């Protein structure tokens, strides 16, 4: 009996050892340098669909042909998988497993990666940093530049010009009071005025963010972002102002019915789908919304669906007498970051991606570029309008959930949805944010 168990143990250990060797052998063999003298750059992005996917591949092969001996491996991944699973795991594994060039989110998000020492300081690329101007500030950590934004824009209200006309709305509202009149007219004409995908949290939270940047002074916002203490009374006032505005209307208004079970994107009954099917007349969203709506227009072709002609855009109106900076807007973008141990050619690739030529062609695909001079590539009038509004905005504040990082971001968004559509109070939002900050 004893001998048998010893045997058992020996065999098991031997088998385990063999398999471990096999497993580790597998990982060591994957990826890495090519033939002697060659360099491989891995580049991860979130453009899983065309035109962006083919565009980045094209840019990579252009760079390869100009730089013999350099191979660029471009891979596209779904956005949340990329940011929440793939990149953190790859950076943690390090070495060849880590991508050399990859997308990084702004402020609180990039800060965590910088603190762990994964990102290369790009401050030396002065030409590129100057060319993107103030758009780059969100990726500046403690005075050093760790990410270079390649697309950037502010959010606004996407609306249906046809439904506006039907309801007798002739002029876009400049203040929240005028905005209220527009909502009443739309409701009277039989449409749901504003669509909101509150099932996903953040689309509803952006309404509160808008009230916050218009209620809080830029200094209060700055202090809150630095200290992660949300004790300034303006955060409670923002919720009070939002609630007061919502309570001016009857029933479910100003939003569509059942907001908390409406997702934001991808499916026909999402808030994007409701705008696309002309069930709702307006939606507060970022620059990407044009593509999302286009996909969900009933009968839209699967390949490169065109945006409907009635889809228009306006900046979010100001609140009269509020303390926030006039013309303050919310926005952000996507940036490239470089892994700390990436081959030096990666910086050259980054400079090439950020050249006026590539940025202009990026604009032609329907994105809002960051490099000065590249806006000439924007052909779509709506995107031109957003690019101009971004340029002329008094202050551009980064999405608050991105600024404060995911933990405070989630607590804040949950509390906001509860304030808007549940039994939450205006004070419960900053309370939840402070409680979440305490767990960091």
């Amino acid at each position, binding site marked *: 009996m004893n001998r*048998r168990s010893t*045997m*058992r143990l020996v*065999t*098991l250990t*031997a*088998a*385990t050892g*063999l*398999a*471990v060797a096999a*497993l580790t052998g597998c990982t060591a063999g994957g990826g890495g340098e090519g033939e002697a003298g060659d360099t491989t750059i891995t580049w991860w992005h979130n453009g899983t669909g065309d035109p962006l996917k083919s565009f980045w591949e094209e840019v990579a092969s252009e760079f390869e042909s100009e730089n013999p001996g350099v191979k660029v491996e471009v891979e596209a991944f779904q956005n*949340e998988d990329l940011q*929440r*699973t793939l990149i*953190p*795991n790859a*950076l*943690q594994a390090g070495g060849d497993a880590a991508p050399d060039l990859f997308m990084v989110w702004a402020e609180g998000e990039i800060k*965590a*990666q910088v*603190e*762990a*020492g*994964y990102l290369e300081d790009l401050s030396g690329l002065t030409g590129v940093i100057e060319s993107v101007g103030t758009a780059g500030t969100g990726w500046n950590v403690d005075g050093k530049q760790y990410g270079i934004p390649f697309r950037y824009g502010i959010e606004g209200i996407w609306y249906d010009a046809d439904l506006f006309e039907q309801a007798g709305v002739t002029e876009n509202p400049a203040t929240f009071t005028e905005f209220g009149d527009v909502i009443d007219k739309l409701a009277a004409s*039989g*449409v*749901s005025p504003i669509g909101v995908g*509150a*099932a*996903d949290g953040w689309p509803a939270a952006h309404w509160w963010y808008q009230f916050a940047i218009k209620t809080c002074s830029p200094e209060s916002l700055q202090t809150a972002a630095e200290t992660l203490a949300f004790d300034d009374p303006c955060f409670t006032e923002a919720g009070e102002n939002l609630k007061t505005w919502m309570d001016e209307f009857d029933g479910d208004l100003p939003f*569509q*019915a*059942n*907001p*908390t*079970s*409406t*997702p934001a994107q991808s*499916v*026909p*009954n999402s808030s994007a789908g*409701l705008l696309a*099917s002309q*069930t*709702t007349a307006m939606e507060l969203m970022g620059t990407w919304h044009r593509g999302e709506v286009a996909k969900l227009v009933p009968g839209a072709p699967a390949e490169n669906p065109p945006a409907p002609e009635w889809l228009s855009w306006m900046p979010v109106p100001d609140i009269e007498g509020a303390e926030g900076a006039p013309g303050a807007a919310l926005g952000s973008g996507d940036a490239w970051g470089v892994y700390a141990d990436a081959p030096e050619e990666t910086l050259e690739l980054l400079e090439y991606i950020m050249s006026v030529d590539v940025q202009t062609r990026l604009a032609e695909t329907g994105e809002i570029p960051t490099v000065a001079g590249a806006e000439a590539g924007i052909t779509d009038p709506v995107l031109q309008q957003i690019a101009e509004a971004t340029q002329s905005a008094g202050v551009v504040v980064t999405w608050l959930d991105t600024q404060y990082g*995911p*933990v405070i*971001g*989630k607590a804040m968004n*949950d509390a906001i*949805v*509860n304030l808007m*559509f*549940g039994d939450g109070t205006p004070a419960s939002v900053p309370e939840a944010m402070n409680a979440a900050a305490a*767990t*960091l």
Partner: protein
Amino acid sequence: MTALDTAGPAVTAGPAPTRSTKRSARRRARTWGEIALLAGPAVLVYLFFVLLPVLLAAYYSFFNWNGLGPLDQFIGFDNYTRLLADPVFHRSVFNNFFIVVMSLLIQGPLAILIALLMNRRLRFRGLLRALIFVPYVLSEVTAGLAWQILLQSVPPTRWGPVDTLLRTLGIEDPPSWLADPDVVMWTMFGILTWKYLGLAIILMLAGLASVPDELHEAAALDGAGWWQTQWHITVPLLGPTIRIWAFLSIIGALQLFDMIWIVTGGGPLNASSTMAVYMVGNGLNVSQIGFGSAVAVVLFLISLIVALVYQRFALRRDLAGALTGGVR
């Protein structure tokens, strides 16, 4: 083990005792080699993909860790105290047990009843069996998205297919299936019943097939009616099947994730959150790997305790092999 030992000598009964010992040693080595070869891969997979992650999760749960950089912020049981104080987590645990209890109370009896009816000679029996099993075969994401689209309405202008049907039947103001926090768990239970009832019925039908016909004949000779026969003979003999189904159902309900994630994402206002949904939403999705691990450990412990208690008390007779223990 005993099977291998007794099977040995019958094959190689050698004359000389010394040769026999040598041979049997070689044979034993060979047997072990075979076992290692056949079981080795499975054991390895189990060690690396089941045991190791469980141990790592337990370890991570004592740290404040965002998944980046070294594990250097040891915080003891802080993640656990935070978790146990969170009302959303309480709601999630409640929702898991709501599904457990409702499944046992409603799905089980319903499945037995339908299986009994379908076990009789019926026209199109094969077709009926196939139809009942179809929802179980559908992928969770497909079924979830379909239900999400069927149930979601935006009154007054855009009604979902289910509500449109109800309105033609005269129910003007149907409940908000997915948006009302008081209704959503009942909706989810309905969807889960639709999805998993087929499996329960098939299991019960398989159990019914093992009930000997002679018992029915004997009961009929003694003057028992159909319902009496089912109640006194079939259902008790179905005991082992029912207990195994209940076990699978309980564990499935405790780990419930995908259907909720697809249909409601845990909403509205966290009303349909479960432990696993809470774990993903507050752990992985916000890069709090330490906290998420603590949730995983608690979920693991709850499942383990329920499983052990159930095995100890409900499955004991089945595991001992007393299949007819329930019949007098």
